[in-house]
């Protein structure tokens, strides 16, 4: 699997990634590094326990990491959650909407991880 194929598969933007990480080698390195990044884990754990500070920190970190890797949709979903839980922000979503965001995020995240794992296996 080439890097553009991987991005195709996980629904990320290879162009965006390339703008930040100018060489394919760097993209390959950091995409695989994403497998060990703890932001998503932290976010999902905070969601489980209803820890709003944790949800903000986790989603904010995930948003930044994904943006750097050109995983724009994942970054956008994380951003929506981080805005919802940013200290001082008014809540704008219903509990159902929040759950929907988390479900969407989880699904896309799992798909992304699966894609990267497959890519990593071939390296």
């Amino acid at each position: 699997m080439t890097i553009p194929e991987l991005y195709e598969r996980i629904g990320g933007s290879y162009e965006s990634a390339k703008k930040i990480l100018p060489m394919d080698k760097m993209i390959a390195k950091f995409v695989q590094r994403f497998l060990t990044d703890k932001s998503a884990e932290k976010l999902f754990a905070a969601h489980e326990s209803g820890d709003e500070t944790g949800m903000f920190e986790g989603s904010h970190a995930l948003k930044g990491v994904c943006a750097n890797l050109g995983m724009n949709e994942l970054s956008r979903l994380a951003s929506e959650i981080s805005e919802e839980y940013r200290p001082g922000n008014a809540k704008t979503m219903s509990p159902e909407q929040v759950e929907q965001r988390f479900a969407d995020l989880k699904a896309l995240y799992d798909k992304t991880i699966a894609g990267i794992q497959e890519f990593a296996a071939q390296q």
Partner: protein
Amino acid sequence: MKRKMEGYTERRTVLVVEDNDMNREILCDLLEDDFNVLQAENGVVGLLTLEEHGSDIAMVLLDVYMPLCDGFTFLERKRESGRFDSVPVIVMTASDSVDDEIRCLKLGATDFITKPYNIEVMKNRMMSLIRLQESSAMLNRLELDELTRLYSKEFFFHNASIVLQSNPDGRYDIVCCDVENFRTMNERYGRLQCDRFLHDLAGWLPQVLPGMILGGRLGADVFAFLTEHQEQDWTEILKNAHFQPGPEQQAMKFSIKYGVAQDIDREISISNSCDRATLALRQIKGRFNTPVAVYDEEMRRMQLREHQLVEFAEPAIENREFQIYYQPKHNLESDATGGAEALVRWIHPQLGFISPGMFIPLFEKNGFITKLDFYIWEEVCRELRKLLDEGIPAVPISVNVSRMDFESVDLAEKIATLADKYNLDHSLLHIELTESIAGDNPELIAKTLERLHENGFIIELDDFGSGYSSLTSLNTLTLDVLKLDMSIIRHASATSDYSILRYAVLLAEGMRLKTVAEGVETADQVAALKVLGCDYIQGYYYSKPLPGPEFEKYIAARCA
């Protein structure tokens, strides 16, 4: 392929403070070709690294949200310590957090970049900030100004104060000197010739100033000299001093102004004495044939008074010293009062009447204007409520908003809440702004005006034709009323040439704006404005500004 940044040979050390391992690694990977990179996973470690490496660190790249010690706390502690003020900090934020950016800049961050990073932009911005920092640090170390061989500013202040300290009984004067329109001269004669000119001038001045002790260059074309105190009037001393530029600069046209602080006050710093001398100097800028001004009691009183006014402002609101006067606007068509403008007066128990021309600019400078404006708006709402409650026909009253009011993003909501508090129809409150406001940030102003409109307020553009007018602002701002400045009215009636006035009214009609003519004083002016189709008249012809109770009587009699 590794691309080195061109022209930068020495590798600088930068400190990356970021809690997310991955983001930190990415950044380090991107930077390591051009910089030595130190890493810290939170603010505490960042501060410790800063302590350890000190000014070897050329720059800090700082994340905002981190556990333990976030970016804000890092900036706060860095500032408190005061030892690393010379190390610039770039804050890395998400693109959608303007509030964070502002907060960081207020805490002393130098700049910010938004994530995701664009590495080329980032490296270039880093290098230019580092170089700026390095060159300003270098300048500070220069004791003598290279061009003029006078002391650099800091060293002049320092050395002059040493002179004072070592001569406790000595009396001294400060003479500041400024070349008028030096920037224009630079344009006209070229940098090289003008530098030569300054060099020669700086060499000549010490020879003609009696009792000369030392001199410094305070700004591009501003010099200051410390001299022994002269009993003779400085105006006399300098009257016959004529600078002859060198042979190549003979053709230059120039004018030199001097400001003097005499027998300087030892209680204040040299820098303050220089301020006094330059304050005097500013009074004669552009005044032909007056080359010298001495800081005197009058200027001192003026300075003190300004200081006093700022000090008195806060209690003046509590003591209700600001009074609102209402100047009626006469509706020409219905021949009845159709509105009024709220104007503020300050009557101080000791100082008496203080002119708005005096205090408004001061409050605009220090920001107090927003508080005063809000106070006025509330007083006007109260008055309108009173009119309604007492069955007096309520006419719309216009209030002024200042440039700084627009900096508050929820201005429209603020005014709406106020009007609602007094249960007023929003159309009773008109908002007046001057055109010069729009010049600053037209998009923001246009947006706020839209929101004011959505909230049902009427917008009047004040001072149209007073010198700032541009047709652009008529296009970009959504307005309802055009207020024609009294200068156009006066000009028209003084010259009997009404053409500008006619076109202004036609322009307003074409844009479906109502017109209010300001400063109308005579029956002839009223008659002419009526013919031209102007809608409202404000001015002494109908009424001067009236205090609340008189205003109530006035409209009760005219609207009934």
